[in-house]
């Protein structure tokens, strides 16, 4: 009897959390649809978009660049160590290029930008929510979706691919530095090997992933900020939730997109 009740409780909790997840997904989808549909209707706020491009894109460059550089360097060492076990050390340039462009560049770049940008968007919009600034926008006949959310999401979609492209180049350069200084590769051969090996699909996969991650990380910042609870505590929770959910969604989307490009 007790066992039965436990099983029922267990099933109920699964049902509840599944329902909760579906509802959250639905709300998020409606939010995203609402934000993106704003593209179809003027007025537009180009100044806001410019401001967000700067803050999402330009100011994330150092973070993404450093991440890519160190990752490329470490990757070169690892592949050398691994390849040496079956006398295949020469694959370093091509595997570094593939690893960075197809996987690590967009994923690590996306995660780093999520840490930086999702949190700050959630904090900013959340503060605007709790100090009634979002309500004030409505009373000034300005749609907060159009004025706050759309420019940020667009900036993510546009700027993150550029960031990731730059990150890819820097990451490959990190591998090149290690390859030529520590592993005894000839500089010209390393570059030729890299360029010969990479295909257009690799690069497209990198950029498509970056677009998706840019969308996810700005959307999560906006969504959690917009639905922030009351007070400083609410904003704090919104910020944490934005970064955590953006990171997990980025990793999940990465898997799905990798399957798609496989």
């Amino acid at each position, binding site marked *: 009897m007790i066992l039965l009740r436990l099983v029922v409780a267990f099933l109920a909790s699964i049902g509840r959390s599944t329902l909760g997840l579906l509802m959250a997904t639905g709300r998020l989808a409606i939010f995203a649809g609402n934000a993106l549909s704003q593209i179809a209707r*003027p*007025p537009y*706020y180009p100044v806001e978009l410019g401001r967000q491009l700067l803050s999402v894109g330009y100011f994330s460059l150092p973070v993404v660049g450093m991440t890519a550089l160190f990752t490329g360097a470490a990757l070169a060492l690892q592949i050398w160590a691994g390849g040496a076990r079956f006398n295949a050390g020469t694959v370093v340039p091509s595997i570094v290029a593939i690893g960075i462009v197809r996987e690590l560049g967009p994923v690590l770049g996306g995660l780093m930008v999520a840490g930086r940008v999702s949190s700050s968007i959630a904090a900013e919009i959340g503060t*605007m929510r709790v*100090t*009634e*600034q979002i*309500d*004030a926008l*409505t*009373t*000034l*006949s*300005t749609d907060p979706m159009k*004025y706050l959310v759309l420019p940020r999401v667009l900036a993510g979609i546009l700027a993150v691919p550029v960031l990731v492209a730059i990150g890819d180049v820097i990451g490959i350069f990190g591998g090149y530095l290690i390859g030529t200084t520590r592993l005894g590769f000839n500089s010209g051969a390393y570059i030729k090997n890299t360029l010969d090996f990479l295909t257009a699909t690799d690069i497209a996969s990198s950029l498509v992933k970056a677009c998706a991650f840019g969308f996810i990380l700005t959307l999560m910042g906006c969504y959690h900020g917009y639905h922030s609870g009351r007070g400083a505590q609410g904003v704090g929770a919104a910020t944490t939730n934005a970064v955590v959910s953006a990171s997990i969604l980025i990793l999940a989307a990465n898997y799905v997109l990798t399957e798609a490009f496989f």
Partner: protein
Amino acid sequence: MADSGDIALPDTSTPGVPRIELRDVKKRFGHKRVLNGVSFKVMPGESLVIIGGSGTGKSVTLKCILGIIRCDSGQILLDGQPDDSSDRRTFLKQFGMLFQGGALFDSLSVWQNVAFRLRHARRPMPRKEARERAIEKLRRVGLGPETADLYPAELSGGMQKRVGLARAIATDPRIIFFDEPTAGLDPIMAGVINDLIRELVTEMGATAVTITHDMTTVRTVADHVAMLHDGKVQWFGRIEDMDSATDPYLDQFIHGRATGPIAAIR
């Protein structure tokens, strides 16, 4: 007046039809019942003052009218029409509001806050002209042109309130809501603001709803007074009748007595 087509629309009110009417509006947050059947009317060109203890739902009432908060039941009529979103957009175009906390955009300077609506309309007003208009409105709320380029974070609470007021009246709206316009102001500045609100109603013919605890504001600004208590309109009447009213709740409130039907400890 306004030169850009959609900055301020012509008055859509009809004489004799209430600009705003609430019928039995209810709203609860979780288990907490805040509005429990609120009804009142505001006629065109009239000034209603809402009084009531803090936390009685005065701000929530205004937000329900604006559609920022959706009420659970009851009806809200704007110009006699049940509000759907397109009517509300038209309504909002002739509308200005001062929020209780000011709600200034802290990423924008003071003049950009005041001129927000002018600058973000479908056809934005040129920068220079908008700035001049903003400075003129700032002057009306007792702030000099030197405040125009400051940021909200650099202002005192009372100054923020006045910038919020300047923003609310920047497009000469036909309907204005003031949420505690004089809270946090010194008595002289409060007097200036009270006169300004009265002027907007008498000279510009605007319709105003003001929330306040300040009995001077009530007496300067009100045509009608509604007192909220326990989620309902406890007393509604003309300002002339307020002092002779026998309602014990109203009496306790306007005389600020600690004892009476309204429990001081909640």
